[in-house]
């Protein structure tokens, strides 16, 4: 899913920082996967498997370096590998909010710190069998709070520290490649079946229901978003369809195993329309969440997490459950927002989080990756100098390579 996210976000930015946007997801794959084996899994699920009592805040270190998780212990190994996917995509989701303006090295450090102090504990709260929100019976089947509300609240906090892109609300910042956005949305949709149905942890009826609900909620959310757009802005846009699909996927994630297909359609329609409205908030409130992580993931996550309180059909629905859902959503939102804010401040005040204005205006691809995504020198627009037009030796090329400060 995370490579799909890379394309979804990558197409939405401007040409000059397209590679950087793709790389923000790929570095999350790199860092989070390694940390998951080193200490992530044990912090998130350690106590779950060892039955120690720690108040449900964080796992113990029984499985440091995946010790005792072997092929002989296949159920646990499969679970640990499956959960890795969630640990990878959650920090990557936040990259959309910070598009086009952060230092790559700082982003990499941010991911490493963020999953360690925000994601691993929150995953423990929500999903470990002794996690304190799990014990409060908060429903989060596949990540509405642990993934989407968590990433959405973190994105908002980080954006408030980083500030707006140069030219926000003044210059056009149109997506540079909408087919790529749709490709990314399609890959995400496909991957989400594994994410959602797989959370049943076995090929049973719950998995089948989750797969169906994932499909129909996503479908309905496309309709909800497009209907809102047609009424409000007069067009059915491609970006709206892609965004609606993601909003539906987000909203059904916490709730899909506990609602009927009709309930899933309702959740989809509501999340599509509400998220379509919510993405305009950044212009009204004046924060620059570049690719609408708050509008889609925080708001979509809240819609799904709260609605399941009412729509749950397996004897869980009602005001009492709604209260539990609100507690879970608020606790994760508050924790993620506060800790992420402090982390982003720490990075900003030490090594600097934000790219220089010169780098930002010129585009981050050249500044941090020594590459450009596209060569337009043959198409007559002349915006990018022809690559390799001047022969250079390997040494000279290495000497000229820009180093990430």
């Amino acid at each position, binding site marked *: 899913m995370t490579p799909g996210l890379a394309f979804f976000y990558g197409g939405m930015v401007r040409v000059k920082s397209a590679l950087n946007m793709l790389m923000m997801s790929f570095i999350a794959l790199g860092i989070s996967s390694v940390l998951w084996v080193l200490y992530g899994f044990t912090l998130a699920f350690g106590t779950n498997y060892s039955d120690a009592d720690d108040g449900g805040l964080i796992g113990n270190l029984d499985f440091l370096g995946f010790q005792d998780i072997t092929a002989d212990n296949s159920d646990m190994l499969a679970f640990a590998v499956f959960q890795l996917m969630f640990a990878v995509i959650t920090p990557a989701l936040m990259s959309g909010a910070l598009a086009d303006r952060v230092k790559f090295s700082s982003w990499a450090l941010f991911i490493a710190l963020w999953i360690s102090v925000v994601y691993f504990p929150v995953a423990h709260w929500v999903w470990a069998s002794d996690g304190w929100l799990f014990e409060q019976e908060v429903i989060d089947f596949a990540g509405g709070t642990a993934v989407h509300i968590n990433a959405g609240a973190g994105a908002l906090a980080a954006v408030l520290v980083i500030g707006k892109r140069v030219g926000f609300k003044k210059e056009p910042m149109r997506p540079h490649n909408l087919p790529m956005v749709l490709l990314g949305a399609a890959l995400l949709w496909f991957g989400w079946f594994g994410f959602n149905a797989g959370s049943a942890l076995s090929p049973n009826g719950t998995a089948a229901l989750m797969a169906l609900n994932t499909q129909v909620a996503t479908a309905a959310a496309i309709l909800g978003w497009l209907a809102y757009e047609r009424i409000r802005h007069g067009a059915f846009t491609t970006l*709206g369809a892609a965004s609606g699909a993601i909003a539906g996927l987000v909203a059904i994630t916490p709730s899909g195993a506990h609602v009927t297909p009709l309930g899933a359609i309702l959740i989809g329609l509501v999340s599509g329309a509400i998220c379509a409205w919510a993405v305009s908030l950044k*212009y009204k409130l004046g924060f620059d969440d570049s690719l609408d992580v708050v509008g889609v993931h925080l708001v979509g996550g809240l819609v799904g997490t709260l609605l399941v309180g009412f729509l749950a059909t397996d004897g869980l629905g009602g005001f009492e459950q709604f209260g539990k859902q609100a507690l879970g959503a608020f606790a994760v939102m508050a924790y993620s927002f506060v800790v992420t804010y402090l982390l982003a401040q720490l990075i900003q005040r030490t090594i600097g989080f934000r790219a220089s204005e010169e780098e930002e205006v010129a585009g981050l691809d050249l500044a941090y990756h020594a590459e450009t995504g596209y060569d337009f020198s043959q198409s007559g627009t002349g915006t990018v100098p022809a690559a390799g037009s001047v022969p250079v030796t390997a040494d000279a090329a290495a000497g000229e390579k820009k180093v990430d400060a």
Partner: protein
Amino acid sequence: MKLITAVIKPHRLDEVKDALQAFGVHGLTVTEASGYGRQRGHTEVYRGAEYTVDLVPKVRIEILVEDSDAEQLVEVVVKAARTGKIGDGKVWSLPVDTAVRVRTGERGPDAL
């Protein structure tokens, strides 16, 4: 001689080419262009954010003709390019001092 320049909607290019051929024009130059007139450009919407795109795609056609044909040719182009909707474009003509056929060195009307 006159240089007739027309900036028109891209989808009318075939009609204009056919009309010029029927009139007896042997050669023309076509360039992709962009611009706007009184109506300005169009509006694009991305997640509710509206962008006004001033410059809209056009094609620019240039034709060299003899003085005697110029007036009539302008009419031919205008008629073929017209859709009656906003943004149809413009046609104008300018006097030309010299024209040379590069292959033979012929000058003036012989070069057309």
